[in-house]
């Protein structure tokens, strides 16, 4: 079991997953999300290849369309 801190709340993951897999599991379209992992802003290609380690702190900023 892995515990991460996502947007200030602790969240348990039953396996190692990438940032992108977490986004999808939360019902988010990764294209519309900015991710900061342990204080670093990830580039878009990193989402799929960056695993969430135990204790990681993740901030997700989701955008909705319209302007």
């Amino acid at each position, binding site marked *: 079991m892995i515990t991460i801190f996502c947007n200030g709340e602790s969240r348990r993951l039953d396996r190692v997953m990438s940032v992108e897999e977490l986004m999808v599991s939360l019902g988010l379209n990764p*294209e*519309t999300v900015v991710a900061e992992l342990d204080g670093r*802003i990830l580039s*878009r290609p990193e989402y799929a290849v960056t695993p969430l380690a135990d204790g990681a702190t993740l901030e997700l*900023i989701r*955008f*909705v*369309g*319209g302007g």
Partner: protein
Amino acid sequence: MSAFFLPVAGGCCPAKKCYHPARRWGSIRDLESRSSKEGLVIFVNDQSLPHEPGMRVADLVARMKPGADVVIINGFPAPPTAVLADGDHCWLIRRGEVPSATEMDHLLHARHTPGVHAVLRQATVGIMGLGGLGSPLAVALARMGAGRLLLADYDMVEPSNLNRQHYFIDQIGLPKTVALAATLARVNPYVAVECIEARLTEGDIPRYFAQVDVLAECFDDPAMKAAALRSALRDLPGAGYVGSSGVAGYGDNNAILTQRLRPRVYIVGDGESEAQPGQGLMAPRVGIAAHHQANQVVRLLLGVDEER
């Protein structure tokens, strides 16, 4: 009715420099008169002139610029019967005439206070997307006398834009950059406007906007909103940033917020109201968000960046 809506006690309006017979002109005159006590002077279209006590606005117009329709004293309109005072700054303008750059500069200086205008006129602001957010934002910044605006959009004006975007029937079919630049020139011809007629990508943004003081993200597409924030956070650390998310429909006015993500980085909107069937983008609410963005740009330019 709450006290919030009651008239301000003790004056015709809360502005210190309001022109009203009971109040007379305010602080600019007071400052200038101190420096010009030796010989009485007034300033007419930025040239000093000996002041004759008792001179009225109508006398000044007849002498300096017959036919001037609009007389601005210390930033505010004055009637022909108003009596001029030592140190007054007067601008005489004929209807239909375009004020000179110096005149516009002084008018904005008087309106916005010296501290605000001096900063704004030196500022460069990038605006990405010229739709319902970007077009009113650009107009607001032109009215503020922002020095330089970089306007980016790849689209042309379509009839469906006119329900909320700052374009006109006779601009349908023009590139939005060209149409908006023309409108801004009618608002304030002394704002330097540069158009980027391109579909921006994440990689372009740092290159196009390397020189901006503040970057405003006004895209429609949520993927580009995310891409722009990512790009700014990663590659434009010196720039202020004002993004947007959740501006559709006619939901609660007060659900539109300006939230600080980190120092000098803000997102405007309710975060949820997505443009979709049954929840369209409409002038009033998109306009609220656009002006949240505009005011936040101004605040960042003026160095205000408080944690709430």
